């Protein structure tokens, strides 16, 4: 097959026969690319929303009990007493915190990394006409949208949104007054359903619809990453669903799945429940999902970074096979490390040895993946365009996040670090400057394929440098805070534990310097938000005014996603592609061009 060189026509002639209407085309579409874009836009909205929640929380952390400027009165008007006088009450802080975590993880990053990029790119990269089950694909998106709406609505019900952290530990979650938690659970059931359907679809697509010649070992690494991710979702989410059902029963049917005998309610009187349940059961089931979930957040990002690095070093990825085996190993192991989040619930030596051993083992394939990507740079001819800058920045950022996972992974050092800002810094380094950078790289990279236009390079670079600086300014100081013992989820930014508050007769309060870094962090976080403005403008402006691509393969890439018309029509390929070689045949000696597409 020859890649078409015309690109100005959005539709190939072959599908001109029925022009679907607006609703069918953009809302109830079954085309994987449209669904991918739906996911992408919705998820970006939630990313922004999740950030705005945090932006307000950072005010409360930094200036506890001071009214939030500008938005404070608005909050008061919309949400009522929880923001009386524009001041964020602890209830509101907890609600925003829980929802920041939930939204970022389940409504922003997973839908963007897994569903949006997966939908848009995977069928193209394996040379398929669509996903295996297009109708189910549409339903997944709708379930996601409904789940999102339920989560959003929960802010406005009496009592507000869920307040027990994104981890929703019982008995707290079962007991907090109001229906926020109920909404959270029901919202989660929709999101879980969406992810399960998506996972089934991705796996079936990758198994069944690979183009002729696209053997397993010729699949781009991104497809591998998505394949493993889908398995994580498929098998780890159902236990959380079961747990959610049980927590819902505890809330609405007054069962005691997670409530032990002898609980005393607020006044100290024994609660009128049957008792006999186990609070730790919830934690096990939650983290059985929770840990694989963090790899769901990172693997697609690694996949994107790998594609972009191969493309912009103009040479094959070093150690493709090690990458594949590592990602499989991570997928497998991620199911048996979950209890490293629970060391301090009271764990005996044997089981904690088991879990910390698996935790140490799982860090090895991550090291291998990172090493392969780094070594791939050697001997390259590196182009520093915007996607590449973000992809390159991913490496050290993930490195910092990953390395700081290690002291958490040993139970003994976790004693000091557990539930401090060290943990917050650890995982934000992986998900924020890590995954978000990879996703931004992906957006800049595939934007021309989806729209036929480039995003502005100049503003892209501005966006990159500002984001890089502020991301680090936000999360770097948190390591020091955590090391000093500053605890997370403090609605007053830990002011109550500061030296200033405790007074001099007690030893070891948080020092002024540590408390002051809250100010730096918050300002950096707000600046980070502002730094996204060039991106948002660039994103929309380029839709109409961006530089047009002059070829269907503007980055001169080898994988099949670039061997289609631009944007790809319904059905994707002009003719069934036939795959002849591996995914990253760049700079093959003796070839006329420095890239050899898989289908030539």
């Amino acid at each position, binding site marked *: 097959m020859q890649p078409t060189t015309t690109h100005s026509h959005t539709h190939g002639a072959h599908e001109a026969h029925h022009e679907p209407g607006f609703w069918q085309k953009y809302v109830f579409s079954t085309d994987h690319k449209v669904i991918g874009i739906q996911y992408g836009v919705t998820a970006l909205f939630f990313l922004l929303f999740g950030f705005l929640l945090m932006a307000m929380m950072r005010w409360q952390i930094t200036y506890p009990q001071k009214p939030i400027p500008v938005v404070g009165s608005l909050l008061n008007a919309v949400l009522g007493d929880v923001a009386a006088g524009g001041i964020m009450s*602890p209830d509101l802080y*907890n609600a925003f915190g829980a929802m920041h975590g939930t939204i970022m993880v389940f409504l922003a990053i997973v839908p963007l990394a897994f569903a949006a990029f997966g939908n848009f790119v995977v069928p193209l990269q394996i040379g398929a006409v669509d996903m295996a089950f297009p109708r189910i694909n549409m339903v997944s998106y709708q379930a996601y949208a409904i789940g999102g709406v339920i989560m959003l609505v929960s802010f406005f019900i009496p009592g507000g949104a869920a*307040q*027990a*952290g994104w981890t929703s*530990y019982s*008995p*707290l979650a079962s*007991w907090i007054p109001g229906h926020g938690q109920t909404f959270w659970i029901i919202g989660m059931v929709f999101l879980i359903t969406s992810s399960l359907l998506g996972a089934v679809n991705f796996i079936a697509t990758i198994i069944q619809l690979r183009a002729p010649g696209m053997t397993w070992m010729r699949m781009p690494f991104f497809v591998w990453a998505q394949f493993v991710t889908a398995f994580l979702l498929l098998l780890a989410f159902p236990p959380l669903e079961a747990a959610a059902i049980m927590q819902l029963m505890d809330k609405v049917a007054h069962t005691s799945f997670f*409530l*032990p005998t*002898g609980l*005393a*309610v607020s006044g*100290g*009187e*024994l609660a009128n429940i049957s008792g006999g*349940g*186990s*609070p*730790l059961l919830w934690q096990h089931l939650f983290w059985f999902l929770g840990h694989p979930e963090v790899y769901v957040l990172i693997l697609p990002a690694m996949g994107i970074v790998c594609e972009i690095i191969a493309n912009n*070093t103009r040479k*094959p990825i*070093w150690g493709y096979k090690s990458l594949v085996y590592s990602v499989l190993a991570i997928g497998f192991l991620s199911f048996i490390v979950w209890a490293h989040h629970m060391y301090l*619930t*009271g764990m005996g*030596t044997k089981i*904690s*040895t088991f879990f*910390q*051993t698996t935790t*140490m083992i799982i860090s090895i394939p991550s*090291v291998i993946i*990172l090493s392969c990507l780094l*070594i791939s*740079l*050697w*001997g*390259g*001819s*590196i*182009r520093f365009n915007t996607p590449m800058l973000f992809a*390159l920045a991913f490496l*050290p950022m993930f490195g910092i996040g990953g390395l*700081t996972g*290690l*002291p958490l992974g*040993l139970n*003994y*050092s976790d004693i*000091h670090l557990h539930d401090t800002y060290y943990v917050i810094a650890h995982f934000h380094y992986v998900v924020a400057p890590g995954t978000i950078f990879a996703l931004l790289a992906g957006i800049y990279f595939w934007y021309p394929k989806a729209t036929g236009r480039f995003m502005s390079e100049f503003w892209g670079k501005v966006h990159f440098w500002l984001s890089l600086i502020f991301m680090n300014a936000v999360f770097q100081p948190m390591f020091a805070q955590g090391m000093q013992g500053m*605890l997370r989820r*403090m609605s007053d930014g830990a*002011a109550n534990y500061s030296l200033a508050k*405790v007074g001099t007769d*007690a*030893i*070891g*309060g948080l020092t002024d310097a540590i408390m002051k870094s809250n100010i730096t962090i918050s300002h950096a976080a707000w600046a980070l938000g502002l730094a996204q403005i060039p991106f948002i403008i660039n994103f929309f402006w380029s839709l109409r005014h961006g530089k047009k691509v002059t070829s269907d393969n503007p980055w001169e890439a080898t994988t099949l996603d670039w061997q289609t018309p631009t944007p790809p029509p319904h059905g994707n390929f002009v003719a069934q592609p036939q795959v002849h070689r591996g995914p990253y045949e760049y*700079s093959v000696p003796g070839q006329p061009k420095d890239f050899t597409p898989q289908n030539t």
Partner: protein
Amino acid sequence: MRELLQLPVLASEHGKTVDDLIVYMHWLMILLFVGWIAYFAYVLFRFRQSRNPKADYLGARGHASTWIEGLVALVEFVLLFGFAVPLWAKLVDDLPKESESVVIRVAAKQFEWNLRYPGKDGVFGKQDISLVSGTNRFGVVPNDPAGQDDFEKVNDMHVPVNKPVIVHLTSMDVIHSFKVIALRVCQDAIPGLSTPAWFKATKEGRYQINCAQLCGNGHANMANGFITIESQAAYDKWISDQKTGAAGAAVFE
């Protein structure tokens, strides 16, 4: 390194080993990070397009990375089986004898720490969950002879220095976590479970007790608990100053 990491004040015997492990781990991390970042910077400089217009199909040769990965794994396992595992085992499987330690029962509650001391005889009176109430937070069985000299405190813990202390943690409502930063002690207090934590304090003084688990809207305010580490003499005097009583109801008023 301790200074670099700015680890906070230390006041317990085992805390030293916790800090050591953190320090060793950070050595490994810094070494790896600095190594990689140097390589990274060099590669980006040397292989940029303007300097190296033609990429090399094969790229890096040699297997240095395999060695590095192997070494990382090795160091991780040394830290794991040489330090974390045995130290943890000592902490959780090697509880000091109750007769030779100070034993305190803690029932956390939104948002305070209820403490129960066995009194001079060192023996706790019987407790029964079904008796728990707003005034009898430990469900103390009245009239149990062993309980007559027990006493209860709220948020005010005293322990002697250089003597093992065992704290039995449970919770009346939601999950809390008993944390004293300087002691390097952190243990969840979970309803339905009674979990021991123990330490041997090495430095006198008054320290704050933190609650390290989100426990509701007062979580940040669960900050009024203090632990006073004092000399044996001062501790004995403190004990003898306490009002005692079986149900311990009075102290809550």
